[in-house]
C-alpha cells in the first residue's frame, strides 16, 4: 500500500504471512459479546480499539504485585514500578525505529502530545506574522492547538488542500511553505478518508524550506510498521488506546535537539531537578515533560499492547487491513445508493467512510447497531474536511486485525437492510397527512 506500510523488517517483525484473525480473536473477551442478540461486529477501531487479555493482565499484575509510585522511591515496590515504566519507554523506542529514550515523552494521549508541542515549542518559537501549515484532512486534535497558538501569537494558519479523491494536493506544498512558515503539522493517515500520506516526501519538502514537521500518527502507528527516523519527522504523536492499550496514555516523540531546547510544558513534581523559593531548574529529558505522577500503569499496558502487536506482526496487520478495506470498498460500492469517500483502496488504510443516499449517517449507525454492528457517524472530529467535501456527516467503518471478511459482508447486508427501512416507507409515503 503506501510508503509507510508493507515494509517488512525481518528482525523485529518476522510474520508477513497472511494474517488469520481467528488466531487472535479469543484474546479479546469483548468480541464474544452479543449486541441486541447479534454477535458484535466492532468496526469503530479508528475511534478506539478493544483490549486483549494480555494487556489487562500486565496492568493487573503491576497493580496487584508491584505497585508504588515511580522514581525516587527507595523501596522495592517503587523500584519495580519504575523498572517496568522505563522498560515500557524502551519498548516504545524500539517500536518506532530505535529512537533514544530521551526522545520519548509519555503523555495522556495524542491530543496532549500535540498540545505539548504547541504550548512549549510553539510559544517559544512562533511570533506575530508567522504561519503554521496544516492540511484539510486533519483531526481537530491537530487543528485546534494550532489555532490557539496562532491566536496567542498573532500568527495565521495555512491549509494544504486535498484533491477531490481525498489525497493531499502535494503540488501546492512548495508554494505554501513560505519564509514565514514556522511549522507544518500533518496526519500520517486520515481518520476519515483512510488516505495514507507520503510523510517522507512531505518532510523532505518541508526540510528543504527549513520547516519542522509534526506528524499525527494516531491512525498510523497502530496499523503499520513505522520508522520515525526514516520519516525524518521532528515530532510524532500517537496514543495508546487506538493500539490495544489503555486510555490515558500517549506518546510524543521529538528529536532530542528540539526537546532539549524547549521549555517544560506542565510544571510540578517529577519535572524538576531542584526547586527553590526563587525558582526551579528543570529535570533532564524525558522527565522534563512528565510533570506529576505519570500514567505508568497505562505505559506498562501500552508496552504489553506493543508486544502483542509484534506477535501478530505489524506488516501483516497493514496487509490484512488493506484487504479488509479493499473488500469493503468493493462490496459497498456495488450497493446502489451507497457512496464511499476517499482514495482508491490501493492508497488507504483500513478506514472506509460512506453515505447511504436518503439516509442520514446517524440513522445509518442507529440501524446498523440493531445488527450488532458498531460504526461511527458524524464528522469524526474533522469538521473542516467534511465542509471541504460538502458533507455534514458520514458513517465510518474502521478495521483492525481482529475483524474478518465475514464482518465486512455483514456490514454490506445490514446496509441493504437499512435501505429497506427507508425504501419501504417511500412507497407508502404518498398518503398525505391532513391536519
Amino acid at each position, binding site marked *: 500500500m503506501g510508503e509507510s506500510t508493507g515494509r517488512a523488517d525481518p528482525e523485529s517483525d518476522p510474520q508477513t504471512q497472511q494474517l488469520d484473525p481467528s488466531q487472535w480473536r479469543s484474546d479479546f473477551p469483548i468480541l464474544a459479546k452479543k449486541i441486541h442478540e447479534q454477535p458484535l461486529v466492532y468496526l469503530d477501531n479508528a475511534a478506539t480499539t478493544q483490549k486483549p487479555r494480555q494487556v489487562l493482565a500486565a496492568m493487573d499484575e503491576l497493580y496487584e504485585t508491584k505497585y508504588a509510585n515511580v522514581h525516587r522511591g527507595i523501596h522495592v515496590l517503587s523500584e519495580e514500578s519504575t523498572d517496568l515504566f522505563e522498560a515500557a519507554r524502551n519498548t516504545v523506542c524500539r517500536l518506532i525505529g530505535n529512537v533514544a529514550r530521551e526522545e520519548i515523552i509519555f503523555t495522556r494521549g495524542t491530543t496532549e502530545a500535540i498540545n505539548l508541542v504547541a504550548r512549549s515549542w510553539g510559544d517559544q518559537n512562533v511570533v506575530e506574522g508567522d504561519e503554521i501549515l496544516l492540511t484539510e484532512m486533519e483531526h481537530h486534535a491537530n487543528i485546534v492547538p494550532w489555532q490557539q497558538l496562532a491566536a496567542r501569537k498573532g500568527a495565521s494558519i495555512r491549509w494544504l488542500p486535498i484533491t477531490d479523491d481525498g489525497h493531499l494536493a502535494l503540488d501546492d506544498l512548495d508554494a505554501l511553505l513560505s519564509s514565514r512558515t514556522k511549522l507544518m503539522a500533518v496526519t500520517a493517515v486520515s481518520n476519515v478518508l483512510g488516505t495514507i500520506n507520503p510523510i517522507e516526501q512531505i518532510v523532505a519538502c518541508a526540510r528543504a524550506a527549513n520547516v519542522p514537521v509534526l506528524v499525527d500518527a494516531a491512525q498510523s502507528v497502530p496499523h503499520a510498521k513505522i520508522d520515525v527516523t526514516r520519516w525524518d519527522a521532528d515530532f510524532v504523536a500517537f496514543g495508546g488506546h487506538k493500539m490495544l492499550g489503555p486510555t490515558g496514555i500517549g506518546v510524543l516523540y521529538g528529536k532530542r535537539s528540539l526537546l532539549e531546547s524547549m521549555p517544560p510544558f506542565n510544571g510540578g513534581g517529577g519535572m524538576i531537578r531542584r526547586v527553590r523559593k526563587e525558582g526551579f531548574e528543570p529535570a533532564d529529558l524525558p522527565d522534563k515533560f512528565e510533570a506529576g505522577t505519570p500514567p505508568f500503569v497505562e505505559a506498562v499496558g501500552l508496552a504489553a499492547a506493543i508486544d502483542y502487536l509484534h506477535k501478530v506482526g505489524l506488516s501483516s496487520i497493514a496487509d490484512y487491513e488493506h484487504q479488509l478495506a479493499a473488500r469493503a470498498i468493493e462490496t459497498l460500492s456495488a450497493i446502489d445508493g451507497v457512496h464511499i469517500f476517499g482514495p482508491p483502496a490501493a492508497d488507504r488504510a483500513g478506514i472506509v467512510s460512506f453515505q447511504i443516499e436518503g439516509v442520514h449517517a446517524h*440513522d445509518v449507525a*442507529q440501524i446498523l*447497531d*440493531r445488527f450488532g454492528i458498531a460504526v461511527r457517524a*458524524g464528522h469524526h472530529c474533522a469538521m473542516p474536511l467534511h465542509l471541504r467535501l460538502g458533507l455534514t456527516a458520514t458513517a465510518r467503518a474502521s478495521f483492525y486485525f481482529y475483524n474478518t471478511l465475514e464482518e465486512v459482508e455483514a456490514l454490506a447486508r445490514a446496509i441493504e437492510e437499512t435501505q429497506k427501512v427507508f425504501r419501504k416507507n417511500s412507497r*407508502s409515503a*404518498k398518503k398525505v397527512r391532513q*391536519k
Partner: protein
Amino acid sequence: MSSSEEEIYQEHVLDHYEDPYHRGRLEQPTHHHKDDNPLCGDVVELDLAIDSDGKIAQAYFDGEGCCISQAAASMLIEKIDGGHVDAVKDFTAKDMLELFGPKLTPNRQKCCLLSWRVLQSAIYAPCDGNREGKSPAEKPRSSQESL
C-alpha cells in the same frame, strides 16, 4: 434486534420524515429562529406568524439532518400550528419526547429536542428589529434543557 431500538423507525416517524408537515419558509414571518446540533450537524429553522392575540396563525420549518430531528420538527409544527404561544411555553422537553413517541437514548434525544429548542427561542425572536426581546430573551423552561 432489541425492542427498544426497533421502534424508532416506525411508520409514524418515517411518514413525518419523508412527507413532512409544513416544511418550507414563510414569506413574512413575525418570528424566526435557527439553530443546529453542532456535534451532528442537524439544522432546524422555524418561521412563525404570530398574531396580536398570541395565536400562531402559521408555522413552518426547514432544515436538514437525521430522520429523528426532521420528523420531530414536523410533528412539533403540526402540533403547534394554529395554537397559542402560551401553549408553546408550557410545552416541556418531556412533552416533546412523548410527542415523538419511540423511546430514545440520550444522544438521540438531542436530535428530537432540536426543533423544540428552536421553537422555545423562536417565540421570543420577533423578526421586527424594533420589538422587545429580539433575540432569544429567555431560556427554555425545562430541566431537560441541558440535554
